[in-house]
């Protein structure tokens, strides 16, 4: 097998990858056109000397366009209007921000769990084990929710519960507050999944609602800590978050009234 053969085979595998699960007509046409292009380039290259690097460069340089094309084909097949990439990214963030927060909390749970399990006080092993198990449940829930959204949401929420009893323990109080935020968000997401969308439902609306509600919830909890002297440093953060949550909810209410 020559270098050009290998390069063409690699490009062919890339084409097969980004055309997988696409409507047969689009996928077949793209694969056939690329097969022809590669053959023509190799035929041209045999005269000019070595097309392998050029083929790979064309593949790499065109990969973002290939992925955008794939996205367009999938959207067309599902009958969804294609959203601009930037807006689509913000909507994805609005829908999934709480999963990122859950990931951070899970990471802390695993680290704290391993550290706690090594302590000498009674029940350390059990408490450490629960924390670690909760942290490990989160990625499982995130993976499962791609197929079974409600089950995955419940798993992620359950994974947060071991962090909640740490409420009020010094600066680490942010951890249980974040965990509670994820529990609220996961609950809303699960109920949203069970409910059929309203006729005027727009993708991302649910996410913005969750953001507003969760920020207010978190802000209220943090503001409560203003009453506790050992948590003075969270008071300012609580006030800021109350303002952010209020602004978020006002925008949501204004958007829904238009």
């Amino acid at each position, binding site marked *: 097998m020559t270098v050009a053969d290998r390069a063409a085979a690699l490009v062919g595998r890339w084409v097969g990858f980004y055309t997988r699960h696409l409507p047969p007509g689009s996928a077949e046409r793209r694969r056939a056109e690329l097969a022809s292009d590669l053959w023509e*380039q190799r035929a041209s290259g045999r005269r000019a000397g070595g097309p392998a690097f050029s083929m790979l460069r064309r593949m790499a340089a065109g990969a973002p366009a290939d992925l955008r094309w794939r996205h367009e084909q999938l959207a067309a097949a599902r009958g969804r209007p294609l959203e601009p990439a930037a807006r689509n990214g913000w909507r994805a963030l609005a829908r999934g921000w709480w999963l990122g927060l859950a990931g951070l909390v899970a990471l802390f749970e695993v680290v704290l769990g391993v550290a706690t399990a090594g302590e000498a006080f009674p029940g350390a092993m059990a408490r450490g084990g629960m924390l670690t198990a909760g942290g490990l449940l989160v990625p499982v829930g995130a993976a499962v929710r791609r197929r079974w959204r409600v089950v995955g949401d419940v798993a992620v929420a359950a994974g947060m519960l071991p962090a909640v009893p740490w409420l009020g323990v010094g600066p680490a109080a942010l951890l249980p507050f974040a965990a509670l935020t994820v529990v609220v968000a996961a609950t809303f997401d699960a109920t949203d999944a069970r409910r059929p969308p309203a006729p005027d439902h727009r993708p991302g609306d649910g996410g913005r609602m969750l953001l507003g509600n969760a920020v207010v919830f978190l802000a209220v909890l943090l503001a409560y800590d203003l009453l506790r002297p050992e948590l003075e440093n969270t008071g300012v953060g609580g006030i800021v978050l109350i303002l952010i949550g209020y602004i978020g909810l006002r925008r949501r209410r204004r958007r829904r009234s238009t």
Partner: protein
Amino acid sequence: MRRKPGTLLPLELDILDAGLELRRGAAPRFHGFQLAKQLAESPRRRALTAHGTLYKALQRLEEGGLLASEWEDPEVAVAQGRPRRRLYEVTGAGERALTAAKAGQRQVRPRPRLEPT
């Protein structure tokens, strides 16, 4: 950044230009790699256009009615021992769009002159 509906990207204008150039050179229809080679020979471009960029642009132009395409006769491809080609040609609408785009580029807005007072 979103493009305005109906506007053509520089690559798409180059594709139409190269397609008409190929037609003038007795190749009324062209395939993707042939077009990429033509584009590479133009003064503005130095390398063969990337696969994803090229074929996405071709599809967009075809959906806009500026190009038309069809598969070549499979027997021709079999006889020559190669995969069959998708052959494109620039439509009348494509010619008009290119002419309009070039005319728009040639129009230069007069700069305000600062007259001494």
